[in-house]
């Protein structure tokens, strides 16, 4: 059941991504997966398998003696992605919740 659910969630994300890439045409595609999206939404609301303590932001912490270096390297043009490739400054590795 969970694999089925994971597939549906992934599909939902895929469609959401495609809808943003292809503009308004994706709106119709979202409707084509509405049953799967509905199932996923209800599953999450009832079972809350995606919930966890957000230790990375909810734990008190303080930084001191900050030393910053920012060296310009190059200007890039015509990039197709809105984010840097391989951005990892928001990743969480210590969550023990195994969702998929």
């Amino acid at each position, binding site marked *: 059941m969970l694999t089925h659910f994971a597939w549906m969630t992934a599909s939902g994300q895929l469609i959401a991504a495609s809808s943003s890439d292809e503009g308004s045409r994706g709106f119709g595609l979202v409707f084509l997966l509405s049953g799967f999206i509905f199932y996923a939404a209800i599953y999450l609301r009832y079972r809350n398998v995606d919930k966890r303590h957000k230790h990375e932001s909810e734990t008190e912490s303080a930084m001191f003696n900050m030393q910053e270096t920012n060296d310009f390297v190059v200007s890039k043009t015509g990039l197709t992605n809105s984010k840097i490739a*391989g951005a990892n400054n928001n990743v969480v590795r210590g969550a023990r919740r195994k969702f998929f």
Partner: protein
Amino acid sequence: MPTDDVEPEAQPATSTEDAPNVFRTDDGAQDGLAKCARCGATEISLNVATGNLRCGFCRFEWATDNAIEAFNLNGDISKLSGILVGSGSSDIVPSTEEILTFKCSACGAEVVIDTNNSTQARCHWCRNTLSMNQQVPNGAVPDMILPFTVEKSTAVEKIASFVGKRKFFAHPKFRAEFNAENVMGVYLPYMVVDINAHARMTGEGEHQTRSYTVKVGDKQEQRYDADLFNVVREFDIQVNDLTVESSSDRLDQNTSQNSNNIINTIMPFDVENSVRYDSNYLAGFTSERRDSNLDQLSPIAHTQAEDITRHRVNDSLAFYDRGVRWTAEEVDVRGQRWVSAYLPVWLYSYQQRNSSGKTFLHYVAVNARTGETMGSVPLHQSKLLLVAGVVQLVGTVIGLVLVAVGI
């Protein structure tokens, strides 16, 4: 092997770099009769409304010392070096029995305490309550305890409200059997960690300088210009009261196997209001014994501390609106302080048994300090699939029409 008049083994402080320095958190603690200072009764329990202990006979109330002040746990984290642990957080000795025999300090009878479930028992001869407050190396007595302050009636309301909003697709058997009054107060074991670390992070960040659309064939596509920077951040970081489950049952948070993530979700607790451990706080509640040691919990705590560091440093990266790609993260933990704690949770549990005979335990949990509520409600799969099918059918028709007209 049962032991009379349990004497905690003295744990010498060590000074080698890797071995933890142990500070005693049960100095002055006594096993046996804990009497009301005013009338001498041993019928003592927690008054949830005030968070104080209350004598069941004369209604005298008092509070145990605040653990943070008593053990100087709010001392400067930047001065932490090496590993410092409370004596209640020391390694569990595998041979230590869970059943302990006390000699009743009132009448001399022998009374058995099963430390798996409680650290209190009643003398079957003189009816006095006997408490175990001294630490034996089996994880039963923590360094500190955070008393319940959310009353059962409030927890019942919160659980009823949570489930009430999720009734339509709930399993019919669950709906029939659900009774929020069946909530239980449980003290769950956690480790509370302070960490003093030095971090150096190296990577690349991008700052967007322009956003525009270009025509590709007959479509419009978005393009971006950005400046790339080499980014380095070096700093000291202090993590305060990082809380980690210390029972192996709760540590397992595989959501296809259990719903322990529900209990994890209701963190954080205001652990700064914890008091020195006193078994009387457990009267009327159940508790779970710690069964994980520092070496099992350190990797989790350190990985979580790295997560905190990574997210905290984002405060200095606002310029990099396209994000940062760290290529090297060095978090050097210079000092850490561990104390074990019992933290209070109101738990409604429901064992779901499916047609194949497999069972799955669902929880609705309420943080008994903050009132934060989270739960897992068993689903009526066939009903959900049926409604999802109808939604899919209608959505498919609408979707095909929209695609046909090019929307």
